């Protein structure tokens, strides 16, 4: 099995999808001959032509509006927003249009073919506007699916599943891992299921839940905790919406403890939703309060990024606090 980084895995998924189906189109700012600012769409224009892979003007609301129209027509648009921080001009198209297309028409029309890719997250010295994790804004919107991969293997399988899924998907890519995360990825076509979390490590004392780039951070924290003799169960949520409650609930029923971590600010972050659900469904099994390790309730900083981020040390502290409560 070849070793590759996450960008190569994403590029391969797009290549497979475009080769398989003429209706698949890739477009966005600098996506064409340049192959995207991160090169996720490299060589796709050469292989599939300008009509199917192209640059758009700098207009996120237009990119998503255009993609909604294409998807409603029966095409399979895989549009790119260059940074998740710049998705907000398209908020109306996503929240009021993409998410409600099937529902409001009574299923006469849908935009299920739409996949919107966007690099998200910090750790690259990107400051306010190249670092944000906006998943929670969209998690408040029924009708959208939100998928975030943790490594190259997951990225390829989840992206192919997102492109073929009958519902519109926001696919947030952890840009810090684009080149940093490498691993074995099958050359062939495969899909990983949406809406299903993955237990990446089994344990008995405490459950850790995260997604995307946080999974690597969780692993480092777990290494420290295991040295303390704490057995950790780790879950990658993978799909933020609709999310897999059962896998997390089953785990917490077993461990009695839960730590949730994300880079986004704490207040209104998705960890709060998970904590609320877990206390509803696991109340009598909980040994300690559900802990959240998140970004601060501030704009994403620049020079103090390391201090802001929910790193392995902060997660390790939370694990200890949870176990010693």
């Amino acid at each position: 099995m070849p070793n590759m980084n996450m960008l190569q895995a994403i590029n391969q998924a797009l290549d497979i999808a475009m080769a398989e189906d003429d209706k698949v189109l890739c477009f966005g700012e600098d996506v064409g001959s340049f192959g995207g600012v991160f090169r996720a769409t490299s060589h796709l224009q050469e292989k599939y032509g300008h009509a199917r892979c192209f640059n758009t003007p700098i207009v996120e609301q237009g990119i998503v509006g255009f993609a909604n129209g294409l998807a409603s027509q029966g095409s399979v648009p895989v549009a790119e927003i260059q940074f998740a921080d710049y998705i907000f001009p398209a908020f109306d198209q996503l929240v009021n249009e993409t998410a409600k297309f099937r529902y409001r028409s009574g299923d006469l029309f849908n935009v299920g073919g739409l996949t919107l890719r966007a690099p998200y997250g910090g750790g690259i010295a990107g400051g306010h506007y190249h670092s944000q994790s906006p998943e929670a804004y969209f998690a408040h919107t029924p009708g959208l699916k939100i998928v975030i991969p943790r490594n190259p293997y997951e990225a390829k399988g989840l992206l192919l599943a997102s492109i073929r899924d009958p519902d519109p998907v926001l696919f947030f890519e952890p840009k810090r891992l684009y080149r940093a995360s490498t691993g074995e990825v099958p050359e062939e076509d495969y899909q990983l299921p949406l809406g299903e979390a993955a237990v990446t490590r089994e344990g008995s004392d405490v459950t850790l839940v995260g997604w995307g780039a946080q999974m690597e951070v969780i692993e480092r924290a777990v290494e420290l905790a295991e040295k303390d003799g704490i057995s950790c169960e780790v879950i990658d949520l993978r799909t933020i919406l609709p999310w897999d409650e059962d896998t997390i609930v089953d785990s917490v029923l077993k461990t009695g403890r839960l730590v949730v971590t994300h880079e986004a600010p704490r207040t209104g972050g998705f960890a709060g939703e998970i904590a609320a659900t877990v206390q509803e469904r696991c109340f009598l099994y909980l040994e300690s309060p559900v802990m959240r390790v998140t970004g601060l309730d501030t704009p994403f900083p620049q020079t103090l990024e390391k201090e802001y981020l929910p790193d392995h040390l902060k997660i390790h502290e939370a694990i200890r606090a949870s176990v010693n409560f």
Partner: protein
Amino acid sequence: MTTRPDSTTPPAPMSGTPEFLAGDEYQIPTWCVLGEDGRPLEGAQAPDIERDKARRIYEAMLATRVMDERMMAAQRQGRLSFYMQCTGEEAAVVGATAALDDADMIMAQYREQGALVYRGFSFDEFMNQMFGNELDYGKGRQMPVHYGSRKLHYMTISSPLGTQIPQATGYAYGQKLAGNGLCTLVFFGEGAASEGDFHAALNMAAVHEAPVIFFCRNNGYAISTPTVEQFAADGVAPRALGYRMHVIRIDGNDILAVYRATEEARRIAVEHNKPVLIEAMTYRLAAHSSSDDPSGYRSRKEEEAWREKDPILRMKRWLIERDWWSDDEENTRQDELRREVLETMKRAEKRPPSDLGTLVSDVYADVTPALQRQLDALTAHVRRYPDAYPRGASSLDPDVKNSADVTTDQGGA
């Protein structure tokens, strides 16, 4: 990165003097064919419309007017929660639709029911949507007048203004790639043209060469805001120049100008994959909606002046002149239409609403486990308090449902 020699804007000629343009150098004329007396203007280029087509257009305009009058009255009687009239703009809407292929996609704003009437949406179908009953294709999920029809290639209406405009660009781009020779026409008002989505849509359509017709109904008002407070420029049409797009301004109350301009726009769009902007100058004779009272922002005198320019009256004069219509026929048809509207309304308002389960279906292609849990909890709650939720309770109790006056099914959407 490879740079193609043709990939940047060609250089404009250099000038030695700092000359500003003021932005008002271009005034786009309004094209008109039919005089208010129903006679083509001297030397005007009239389209070639056959008798049957002309009558189909006129009857659609008439049916739209009658339905609008009746439904506004029904709203005033408290039978309907909300309504919006097309009144005064029937020529713009029906004329544009008539010039298309019936399989072209129409993406409308919300005031374009005339397009659906022309394509054969029945009064039953209109009423089912307005009363949100179990036969509504939209399953009672939207306010009245948010129609959609897949079989008639009419995209379901969305309330947010302007969102359909970039979608039309994308839809048309898909039609171009499919090579089916079809195009998309998108309706919007001059107010909605202030939204960012409008500019996004026109620029992308020009850049990506999409076969889309942007049809602006400049009806003078965005609820209460007159055009002079909407834009400083000469209307919406000049914006096309900034996008290097074909454009024409027409008298929107002149059925022949609307038809001929749209027919030509369609040819440009489909044969050359070029977008076209049409600005139809018209007037919203009715209020913005049933919730609006125009007496607070415009004069009776102004309204009366526009009533003289009624597009239905003008087309009727033209038809009668050619002996394709008569006053007797008009009276008979109006009576029939009024009766039909009342009958279908009575049928629709008696029908029960969609099942409780339609609250959670179509959010996703399949109902998620979490949504199923929410529906189960709600169902149990409604069963416990049926009197508090009569609509939901009736869908759970077959006896209540069967007592309604159920007539024939309306068939596919």
